[in-house]
């Protein structure tokens, strides 16, 4: 069942990937620089959210600490660029690897925790990170932060276009890698751990190992995102990586949808543009943009528990169902392929998880 499902996905992915690439490249050339720049920020969020989706959606662990790993990557990159004169592009993998190491170190004890306890522990981490950064003055320059001159643009592109293409290019590569990873043995094992820890253990999966590895992978994404953020902002300081950042990333993951690879993209656009746009709403928006943000967040969770990606999938299911019902059978075997099956699969996975979590809590 799942194999067939993935086979459909693979073909679709290639097409989607090609379409996505065109879509991604155009804004850089068509839109004004400031929009391109905002979209580049969204790309950074997408990467950080992807990491969290891997952790939460596919390994079942809730983390409120993504900002702390972003800080590791962001500071690593900023320090290497500003004090050691590295090229920014070279710092990207270093930032990722360093964050991975920290992620695994955190992941080993965290593997013992589940649900709300892990959420609390990682929340503590995201609060502690800025305080620690302020104290490590020789390395981080304390509260004053580090000014980074952004990497020079590639070829004839403007600074913003170059940054945009880099951020979304990295996001695209990581998304493809993630999809491949999940499709393989590793992904199946992760999902087995998520769906039933006991069952996974009895079939010989080393649960703590997989959990720690998921933390490491998630931290890698966060580290890379942090490095890109430092280049985009041209500045890092402890306040740049406060708990609000971790919360934004978690919000993006949930709003986008933690069960889907489209989730990070949609979630990133949500967290990037909501706070800015909320300020444009007259009266409440100018007086208290936070109220609008909070209400929207609650609404999305209540109305679309599988996130925007889930909504989109549902809409697509309806559309496809409509097409199937109204198309003569003669169009070939392709028309018979019942797309809702895929949705049913997704729904089953989600249902299973909901049931599992409810059970654990009771």
């Amino acid at each position, binding site marked *: 069942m799942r194999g067939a499902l993935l086979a459909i996905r693979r073909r679709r992915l290639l097409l989607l990937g090609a379409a996505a690439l065109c879509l991604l490249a*155009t804004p850089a050339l068509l839109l004004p620089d400031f929009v391109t720049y905002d979209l580049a920020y969204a790309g950074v969020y997408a990467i950080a959210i992807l990491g969290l989706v891997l952790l939460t959606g596919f390994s079942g662990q809730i983390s409120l600490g993504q900002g702390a790993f972003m800080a590791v990557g962001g500071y690593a990159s900023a320090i290497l660029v500003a004090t050691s004169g590295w090229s920014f592009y070279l710092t990207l993998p270093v930032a990722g690897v360093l964050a991975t190491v920290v992620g695994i170190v955190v992941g080993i004890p965290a593997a013992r925790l589940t649900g709300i306890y892990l959420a609390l522990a990682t929340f503590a981490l995201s609060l502690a990170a800025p305080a620690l950064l302020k104290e490590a003055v020789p390395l981080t320059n304390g509260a004053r932060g580090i000014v980074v001159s952004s990497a020079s643009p590639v070829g004839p592109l403007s600074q913003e276009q170059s940054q945009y293409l880099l951020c979304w290019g990295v996001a695209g590569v990581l998304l493809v890698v993630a999809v491949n990873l999940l499709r393989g043995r590793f992904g199946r094992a992760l999902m087995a751990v998520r769906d039933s820890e006991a069952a996974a253990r009895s079939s010989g999966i080393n649960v703590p190992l997989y959990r720690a590895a998921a933390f490491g992978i998630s931290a890698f994404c966060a580290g890379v995102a942090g490095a890109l953020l430092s280049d985009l902002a041209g500045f890092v300081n402890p306040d740049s990586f406060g708990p609000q950042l971790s919360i934004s990333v978690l919000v993006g993951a949930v709003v986008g949808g933690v069960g889907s690879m489209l989730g990070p993209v949609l979630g990133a656009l949500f967290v990037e543009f909501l706070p800015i746009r909320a300020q444009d709403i007259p009266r409440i928006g100018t007086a208290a943009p936070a109220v609008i943000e909070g209400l929207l967040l609650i609404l999305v969770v209540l109305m679309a528990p599988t996130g925007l990606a889930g909504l989109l999938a549902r809409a697509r299911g309806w559309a496809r169902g409509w097409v199937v019902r109204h198309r003569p059978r003669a169009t070939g075997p392709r028309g018979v392929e019942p797309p809702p099956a895929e949705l049913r699969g997704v729904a089953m996975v989600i249902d299973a998880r909901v049931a599992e979590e409810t059970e654990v809590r009771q």
Partner: protein
Amino acid sequence: MRHRHRRPLRAVVATMALTLSACGGGAPSGAAPHGDSTGVTASSIALGTTFALSGPASAYGVIPKGTQAYFQYVNDHGGVNGRKIDYRVLDDGYSPPQTVQLTRQLVQQDRVFAMVGGFGTQQQMAVRQYLNDRRVPQLFVTSGAATWATDYHQFPWSISWLPTFATESMIDAGYVKRTLPGARIGVLYQNDDFGQDYLTGLERGMGDATRQIIDREPYDVSAADVSSQVARLRGSGADTLFIFATARFAIQTMVSAYKLGWHPRTLLSYTSAASTIIDAVDRAAGSVDATEGITSVGFELDPGNPADASLPGTGLYQQIMGRYLPGADQSNVFYLTGMSNAYMVVDALRRAGADLTREGLMRAAASMSEPANPFLLPGVVARTTATDHFPITQMEIGHFHKGIFQLSGALEDTRSAMLSLVAH
């Protein structure tokens, strides 16, 4: 299947070509031969700012409301050289990456003429390079760090307006050396650049007498309360207490010291010396004795202080508040801070002339000699030259008596000391 995908692609390519040709045809924006006047029309000037309207520093979020009110007042009185000010405030939540994004939005999307009064040292430093690269004025930043003045040759498009924190603690140090020789000093300071700037200024001002500082107690902004630090300061044997803190912690320190039965001579940073804050201390301690004799400095009016009530600036303030911010708490000094910032902006715009350019505005900002800002204490002159970017360096020592701040009557000027910082 194949059909379906090709069409949108072709459309995309077509749009791309169209837009590219359109881009090629457009002239670079606003680059008139004599200078850049982006954001200026015959009837309006677009200004922007980023501020912490939400988040940990949101107490300062009323400052731009005061600024806005003053701009409205100016607009209703004919504007600046016939142009009305169109002022846009965006909330960065005190997070530098947000500041960067929103500043770009204001500069590139909203095409403001200048950024004015932006809030927060780190936040504004995060956009300083960008604004200087683009040659957009970063005018009268709301930050007390010295770097805005000391690094002006590297960042000629940036200038702040507040007296630097070091200015104040140097004046304080002079006062202690004159009137309290032999004082044993304890310092409570916020453990970030704000508190550290104060501490450094104090140490420099004390000079050879620095060893009289016998205890330095930092606190972090994330602390719940500072009672532990106060207990340590009391235990250190200090008889003179410096409080370099934001409002909440300053209040806690004074209340906590009073309740411990510890009554040192107290010097309070101006960031927390508003009459509303002193009132809160007295109320919490249950006695005006808690703040009796506390020393601080002033450079602007305090609308909550009856001693300032007769000054023309207070009258103007009340008039503008009543007209444009009815119902707002007039005793909150931050509204006035916003207005005195706005006054300087308007003054610079006016002097930059009818033929308004960004270059002209920066020239005006760097050649100020403005003795008439009604929101500053009488006698305080905002002054800048091509080599001196410290607009306000004068402050006046004063003491709280029965909850009311009473100035000593002698303005002190640290301009020469501040300028010596630049040479270093």
